[in-house]
């Protein structure tokens, strides 16, 4: 529709200005630009999609994860192989000398040397993972070996739905500012300090309203995801707040399937 009007405008212009061959190209481009700008503004005002920005806040792992069975086997094998290829240490030389001395004394009962493998055992105070602490879904200290994603329960179309905290875009702000506002406006997230990774969104979710709710101006919503990393936990959130820290596997339980597909790609499974 807009294209046709543009063509008509140009054709009438070319019919009238036959004499000014030199001026025509210049003025026609100026006219084109003006119409393009008008078209852009017109389109934005009539866009049927409402824009929203959501924040995908991740708490990255604090402890290194335990080794899987094959990793443990491989680690033991490598220890053995390196031990076989190594030179004798001072302690081992001392033990050999002591053994020789004892055999020269011809003592009947001498104790066998201690095992050589004590050095391979890792002496460390590994954090005893407390099972109860892992079950507390609202605490950001659960499951220190995995990365967690923040979920909030918000009202969408009158129903409470679990999703990434989102807010509606307003005029005069960039989408990243909308995402920051979405995080700040959460009631229980007062002390959370997050670092947003860049100005560009990392994913999008398009949601078309059901036929009954569609009007001329709104067909659906587009939710843009922005990635953020938790830099400071802050004070522990009060109980009962509609907040969740979920592992990547647990997201499936809370999010809707179509939404889950889009979020799955953003939350890297590494």
């Amino acid at each position, binding site marked *: 529709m807009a294209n046709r009007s543009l063509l008509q405008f140009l054709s009438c212009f070319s019919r009238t200005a036959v004499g000014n061959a030199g001026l025509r190209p210049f003025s026609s481009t100026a006219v084109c630009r003006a119409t393009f700008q008008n078209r*852009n503004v017109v389109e*934005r005002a009539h*866009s049927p*999609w409402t*824009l929203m920005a959501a924040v995908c806040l991740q708490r*990255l*792992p*604090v*402890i*290194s*994860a335990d080794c899987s069975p*094959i990793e443990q*086997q*491989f680690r033991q*094998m490598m220890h053995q*192989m390196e031990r*076989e*290829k*190594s*030179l*004798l240490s001072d302690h081992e*030389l001392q033990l050999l000398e002591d053994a020789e001395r004892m055999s020269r004394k011809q003592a009947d009962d001498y104790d066998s040397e201690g095992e050589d493998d004590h050095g391979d055992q890792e002496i*460390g*105070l*590994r*954090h005893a993972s407390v099972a109860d602490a892992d079950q507390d879904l609202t605490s950001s200290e659960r499951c*220190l*070996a995995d990365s967690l994603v923040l979920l909030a329960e918000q009202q969408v179309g009158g129903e409470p739905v679990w999703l990434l905290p989102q807010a509606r875009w307003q005029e005069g702000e*960039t*989408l*990243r500012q909308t995402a920051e506002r979405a995080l700040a406006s959460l009631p229980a997230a007062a002390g959370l300090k997050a*670092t*947003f*990774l*860049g*100005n*560009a*969104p*990392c*994913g*999008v979710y*398009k949601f078309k309203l059901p036929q009954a709710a569609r009007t001329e101006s709104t067909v659906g919503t*587009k939710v*843009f*995801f922005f990635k953020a*990393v938790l830099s400071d936990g802050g004070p522990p959130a009060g109980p009962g707040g509609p907040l969740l820290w979920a592992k990547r596997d647990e997201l499936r339980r809370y999010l809707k399937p179509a939404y889950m597909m*889009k979020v799955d*790609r*953003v939350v*890297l*499974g*590494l």
Partner: protein
Amino acid sequence: MSAALSRGLCRALTRQAAPSSLLLGGHGRAAPGPWFAAVMTLKTSAPLRAEPKKKKKVDPRRDHMLKERMKKKLKKMEKVAPEFIPLEDLITPTKCLDETRERIAPRLSFGESEGRALLLKEWCRYKQEQHMAEVQAVELALEAQREALEELKLESEELYLAALKPDPLLFPFTREGPAYTPPKSKYEAPDGKYIDITKVYTQ
């Protein structure tokens, strides 16, 4: 003084020359002979006087040249190439070259060596799967971002351009990786001195 000497010698020679002419007989010339003129001019000729002057010109030049050559040689001697800083990690300590420290390699049974080979192959497969999973995850994330930017472009140009702008406050970005044990809350580190004993070499 040389003039006076020459005059004195001339007189002596004329006195002597007179009787010699008488001896010669017939000629009786009072003028001195040819050898006399040569002797007269012996002490007063230019070449005799100019020789010490030539020496003066050449000597300072020669001395100067000699001094310069000596200086250049000294400078070349002083230009020694700087010593290389030793790489302490690459110098094998003499303790390790001791022969008494060699460990006797144990004989592995066939079963054990086979088990090791099979475990190595399994590990190779496991690592490959891990790597492929990583690469795929990164590709999916990039695809998701590309889609998001396309949708944003369809929506509005300004927001798209604002999204493409780089964030100046993000870098330098640092984050401590996962440790073996979690950090203690309310941990007070004790005060202490830190004495740096790294060896510093100067060239």
